[in-house]
């Protein structure tokens, strides 16, 4: 009920497929998706294992609400040891793939080992096959998606694939499903590529049942009403998408700009949600065509864009003249603000290529930003960049970079390392805007202090989705706190982290929490699956997951020293905006955070904590 109770275990080394029953004891302790799959990973993978080796595993997992009519109940996560960071990685994606996996009858798929040759896996209900991917290798995500559907003559198949970036083990390559939804961060696509696994194609015709349909329908309907009545989820997100934040964060002086040199981008409004909806000067049509929902989502924040056919990026490439996934805020920030580029059509094109070749646009954009700083400060020159004039603000440079990085050619090979390895290579590690090797996203901790602690303590490296205190500090959800203040933030960060871990494990999208609290979510989970799923239990599960992930990372060699921020944020004060003169006050927050977590000041969970949570 809710869970299908079945797991697929696919050994790529030996080419075998086995099924097993879901460990229900673990399901009761870790719920599903992020939590439950992480439990399998920590039990089965040595924390010191090479992420890009056969001993690492790659798990695709759904949650108990995936494939139900709960709003946003279409999520799945990819769990593995991340090659960008060396930490546990969990990357969450929408689209339709996750629900389809559930309809095919599977809670999760565990990929083990390494195939001797490129393969793809088809999961057509109970019929699971490892197939030769000779004809797919070297193709983009979009080409692979099309070819798989065509080869199997079934357009209802949903495909999660890596692009050429993943094949080349670009350290921040992602797994793209449904053409433009992605398990984006931490390089989960490189793990798939390392396993020689090009794609997973799923078609499910089975049904999903829940424990108590009547109660479930009541709970989910009540939840949908809350989303509809809420101004953010009912109007703001569908109309403007996440990109509405471009001006908000810029105005608040927390927009990391030009590799974090500035906290405000003077051209933010040229690449904002408002700009996307405005008719273009060139052809009178807006960049944004419509919004799109993921499976089961009653919010529908997804952007669908069409590039101006006369724009230099596509004028000779009619294959890009169709609609596809448009800019979301993080992508627009990384590709635009972090590089100082204000060319909306160019950014849309680069975003298309990121989707097509399977690149995480956050890390890619941030890495280009770092490379631009290396170039402008004379650390690297045209010889190294292969003639690319890598100046802040150059759309042409960014476009060349994205085309090379996906293919891992020329300077693209170096960009594929991510900013940490790139800047280290040229002796300037301080220019990498990363935590645990992963680039931080679109919020500058000097202007939003809580996010500094979120980045520093995130279990998968710098990330906004591990504890989105922006909601409180800037947007006033659930209540407004002062973004420039560090007081109270450790508690806020911990609460967001635990709640998010629970939501990520349920099959739901974290964006519901702009309107929902666990009070709205717990009844939906409780009606779907066995076990008394109260708010308290959800929070306890969230905290348990957080600690489990932490322990894995500690065993992998991470220490309190890694709970840190780039020097620039700690030493160079913001130059403009409300945060002018401020640096990130991490030192004021971290000790209290460890205390609240029940960890030692070395960042290690105490025995009491472990016992309390039964990790």
């Amino acid at each position: 009920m809710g869970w299908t109770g079945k797991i697929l275990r696919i050994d790529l080394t030996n080419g075998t497929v086995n099924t097993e029953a879901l460990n229900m004891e673990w399901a009761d302790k870790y719920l599903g998706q992020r939590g439950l799959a992480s439990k399998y990973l920590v039990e089965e993978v040595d924390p010191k294992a090479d992420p890009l080796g056969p001993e690492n595993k790659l798990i695709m997992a759904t949650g108990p609400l995936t494939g139900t009519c709960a709003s946003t109940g279409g999520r799945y996560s990819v769990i593995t040891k991340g090659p960008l960071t060396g930490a546990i990685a969990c990357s969450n994606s929408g689209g339709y793939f996750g629900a389809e996996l559930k309809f095919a009858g599977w809670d999760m798929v565990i990929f083990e080992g390494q195939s001797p040759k490129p393969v793809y896996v088809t999961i057509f209900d109970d019929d699971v096959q490892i197939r030769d991917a000779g004809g797919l290798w070297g193709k983009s995500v979009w080409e692979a998606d099309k070819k798989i559907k065509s080869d199997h003559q079934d357009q209802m198949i949903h495909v999660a694939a890596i692009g050429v970036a993943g094949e080349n083990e670009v350290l921040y390559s992602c797994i793209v499903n449904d053409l433009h939804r992605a398990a984006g961060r931490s390089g989960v696509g490189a793990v798939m590529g390392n396993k020689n696994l090009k794609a997973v194609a799923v078609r499910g015709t089975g049904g999903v049942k829940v424990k108590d349909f009547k109660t479930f329908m009541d709970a989910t309907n009540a939840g949908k009403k809350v989303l509809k009545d809420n101004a953010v989820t009912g109007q703001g997100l569908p109309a403007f998408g996440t990109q509405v934040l471009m001006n908000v964060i810029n105005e608040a002086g927390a927009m990391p700009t030009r590799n974090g040199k500035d906290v405000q981008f003077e051209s933010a409004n040229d690449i904002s949600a408002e700009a996307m909806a405005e008719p273009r000067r060139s052809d009178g049509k807006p960049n944004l065509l419509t919004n799109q929902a993921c499976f089961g989502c009653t919010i529908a924040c997804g952007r669908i864009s069409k590039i101006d056919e006369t724009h230099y990026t596509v004028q000779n490439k009619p294959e890009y003249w169709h609609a596809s996934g448009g800019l979301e805020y993080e992508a627009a920030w990384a590709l635009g603000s972090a590089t100082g580029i204000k060319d909306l059509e160019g950014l849309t094109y680069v975003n298309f290529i990121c989707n097509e070749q399977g690149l995480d646009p956050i890390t890619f954009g941030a890495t280009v930003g770092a490379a631009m700083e290396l170039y402008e400060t004379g650390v690297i020159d045209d010889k190294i960049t292969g003639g690319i004039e890598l100046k802040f603000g150059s759309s042409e440079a960014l476009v060349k970079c994205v085309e090379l990085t996906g293919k891992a050619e020329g300077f693209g090979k170096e960009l594929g390392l991510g900013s940490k390895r790139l800047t280290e290579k040229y002796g300037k590690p301080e220019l990498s805007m990363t935590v645990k090797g992963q680039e931080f996203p679109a919020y500058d901790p000097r202007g939003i202090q809580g996010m500094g602690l979120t980045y520093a303590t995130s279990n998968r490296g710098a990330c906004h989705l591990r504890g989105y205190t922006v909601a409180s500090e800037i947007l006033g959800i659930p209540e407004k706190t002062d973004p420039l203040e560090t007081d109270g933030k450790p508690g806020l960060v911990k609460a967001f982290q635990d709640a998010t871990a629970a939501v990520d494990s349920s099959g739901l999208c974290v964006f519901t929490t702009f309107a929902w609290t666990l009070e709205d979510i717990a009844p939906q989970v409780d009606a779907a699956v066995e076990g008394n799923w109260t708010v308290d239990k959800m929070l306890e599960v969230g905290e348990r997951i957080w600690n489990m992930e932490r322990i894995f990372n500690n065993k992998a060699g991470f220490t309190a020293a890694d709970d840190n921020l780039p020097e620039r944020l700690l030493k160079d004060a913001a130059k403009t905006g409300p945060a002018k003169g401020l640096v990130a006050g991490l030192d004021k927050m971290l000790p209290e955070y460890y205390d609240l977590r029940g960890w030692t000041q070395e960042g290690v969970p105490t025995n009491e904590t472990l016992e309390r949570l039964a990790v």
Partner: protein
Amino acid sequence: MQVTLKLFASLTPFLPAGAERNAAQIEVADGTTILSLLDSYNVPREHCHLVMLNGVYHAPEARGSVPVSDGDHLAVWPPVAGG
């Protein structure tokens, strides 16, 4: 005195004629508060969710008493979010 009024998302239509990309330079009298300024442009109070004066948020209860000064930027959004 001169103030920059920025209205975003669904509030854009309330900007005066001549506004460019969500912003308009407007002339205001001394003593104008955030609230009275927004009222004078008929921006519905219930939709003024995020109100930032020079990037600093002001809660609804403070908007009637905080005055705007020459050169200030007043930016307003309805309830929005992202990620």
